[in-house]
């Protein structure tokens, strides 16, 4: 089979999926690791990347291949951010809220009445929601606010931001050993990255 028709068939298969999970677009198992995801993405890039087909496909077929490749790239981003969230959140021992970032298909929850007519993502209220956890009992309420900000920073992958917020939290509640150990873990992570 020529590279051209392989690419087109692959692209049509991807575009035919409705509401796919990231691992389905990457065509890897749901419990696959980062290496597998990266390999799948690189394979897609080598075969599907629209630049390789610019001179050989019709504009319509090129659009199909471009859309498919863009969706695979989007899936790779989503997969990567989910994995980074879970692996970085786990050492913080914070119970149920440490689950992967909420997905847009999560059931809608009631939120505050918005002041303007913008759409609410169904997950918007899930993220900042405070559920009883080890964290809330381990520090003062003011420190908890900083701790939540640190959590959000971690979800963004912003380790330095998380460190800063944790330090603010310790400033608000210097007695909390929980916060100190959390800071230690983030600092270790930063040191590991700098190495």
């Amino acid at each position, binding site marked *: 089979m020529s590279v051209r028709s392989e690419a087109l068939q692959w692209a049509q298969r991807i575009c035919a999926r409705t509401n796919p999970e990231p691992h389905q677009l990457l065509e890897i198992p749901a419990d696959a690791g980062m290496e597998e995801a990266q390999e799948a993405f*690189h394979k897609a890039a*080598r075969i599907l990347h629209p630049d390789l087909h610019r*001179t050989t496909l019709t504009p319509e077929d090129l659009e199909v291949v471009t859309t498919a*490749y863009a969706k695979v790239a989007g899936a*790779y981003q989503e997969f990567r951010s989910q994995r980074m969230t879970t692996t970085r959140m786990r050492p913080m021992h914070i119970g149920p809220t440490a689950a992967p970032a909420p997905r847009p298909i999560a059931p809608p929850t009631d939120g505050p009445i918005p002041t303007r007519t*913008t759409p609410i993502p169904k997950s918007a209220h899930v993220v900042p929601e405070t559920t009883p956890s080890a964290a809330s009992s381990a520090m003062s309420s003011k420190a908890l606010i900083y701790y939540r900000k640190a959590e959000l920073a971690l979800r963004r*992958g912003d380790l330095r931001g998380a460190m800063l917020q944790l330090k603010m939290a310790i400033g608000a509640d210097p007695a909390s050993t929980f916060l100190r150990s959390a800071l230690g873990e983030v600092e270790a992570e930063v040191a590991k990255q700098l190495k």
Partner: protein
Amino acid sequence: MSVALGIDLGTTNSVAAIATSTGVEFILGPRGDRVHPSVVAFPSSGGVVVGADAKRYRLTEPQHVIHSAKRFIGQNIRSPLVQLAMTGVRYKLVEGPNQQPIVVVRDRKMTMPEISSNVLLHLKRSAERQLGQPVKEAVITVPANFTDGQRQATKEAGRLAGLDVMRLINEPTAAALAHGFGRDRQELVCVFDFGGGTFDVSILRINNEMFEVLASDGDFFLGGDDLDRALAEVLAADFTRQLRVDPRPHAALMMKLMMGAEAIKCHLSENDAAEGEIDGLDLPGGVSGKLPFSVTRKQFEDLVGGYTQRTIEVTRQVMAAAGVSPRDIGDVLCVGGSTRIPVIRRKLAEVFGREPNHTINPDEVVAQGAAIQAGSLTATLSAGTGMGARDAVATAGHSSLATGNRTLPMGVAKRPVLLDVNPATLAVHTAGGFTERLLDKNAPIPIERTRVFTTARDNQQRVEIDCCRGENRKYVENEPLGTLVLEDLPAKARGDLKIEVSFRVDADGILHVRALDQQSGVRQEAHLQVLGAPSTSDSAAGAE
């Protein structure tokens, strides 16, 4: 047969090249130089002059000489950084439609894409003369941190110059491509791109023909011009002390001092001290004055220390974002004229524990990469291009490659695959003033993601989707990009309506937003009308 040009459209200088079967051939200026100043003059004698010839008018009529257009293209004129940059130019800029900057020369008004199109047209015509073939297609490079509006405006400039802009690629990526194409290597490279007006750092993983950007960041308003200005301010203070006239309100005097500062800066890259005098300074009252100066390299390094430190900080941040450490980096590529400054190379050597690569030509490597990508997109690359391009890199500064060999068949090269990244996080405004991120900074492009949103109130028939760029969770802290409106939605209880919002960033780094009501099929699609960008007529919106 037409050829596809690779163009490095720079703040101060531009370079154009084409891929040949034996390497990369540069387009030469009237005096045989590869570097074309990005300067457009509208002299009193009439006509439009571009390039080296236009630079001559800087002294006689600075208000008619448009330079550094790249600092303003696709920018919102109300942005504080743009206002600051405006103090550094002697031509007149006013606010035009959609808050875009408009150049006023005598009674003529021109948009920034129109100005830049003159530079591109000059390169296109020079290429056609040199190659004896029409040039219709081009790949143009842009700084990695260029925004959507800046990218759209650059494409518009190409279109106005009669070029089909096949692709915009990021300058650091182009440099890595020129460095790694045809080498069959696996390594991590850091591209440090410090040019006349912009600063970028990218970390790339090169795996044979695949060039994957892992992370990229930079500072759009930081370049060699800033170093010149810092030095010119010192010269202006000396001037006031010695000649008892403050030169700052006088455009022509300041231009002379800026040019003097640039010459001193370049001299200090080769020597430990610069001494001499700037003459031909026409003082008010018709007398001509001289300003003696004496600057050591150490003094200059102290003066610009804040700027150089900033570039090193950004480099460390980008490495952290890419998840790599300095020891993993196999090669450090210096791009842009400002990397000739010894203190920059010294600091990079400190960070990486190794000297930056000396073999690449910082002025030409980006255009080389653009030419290779142009050849790749038109499927005209041959195996010889990579080898020849590298020889050209190694011998950069010598004569251009012979044009006669262009038709020699050298076998087909493996086409490079560029995996570039999205320069900034893109998100939508949600209830409560927060944002919901759709596309992350440093995600590979082209990329598409769709999320399902719902309405916040009962019987809500109209939904506004405000799009923004930036990392902050709070909408107001980010840069607004534009708004998409969905109207005439069926009356439903809140939460029952399902609205699909798709963000796609294309291979040029330009955002396209689509919104769709899943049940009724009310669809809105738009290229966001970004503030500061030229108005586009191709934004489509309508119900199906």
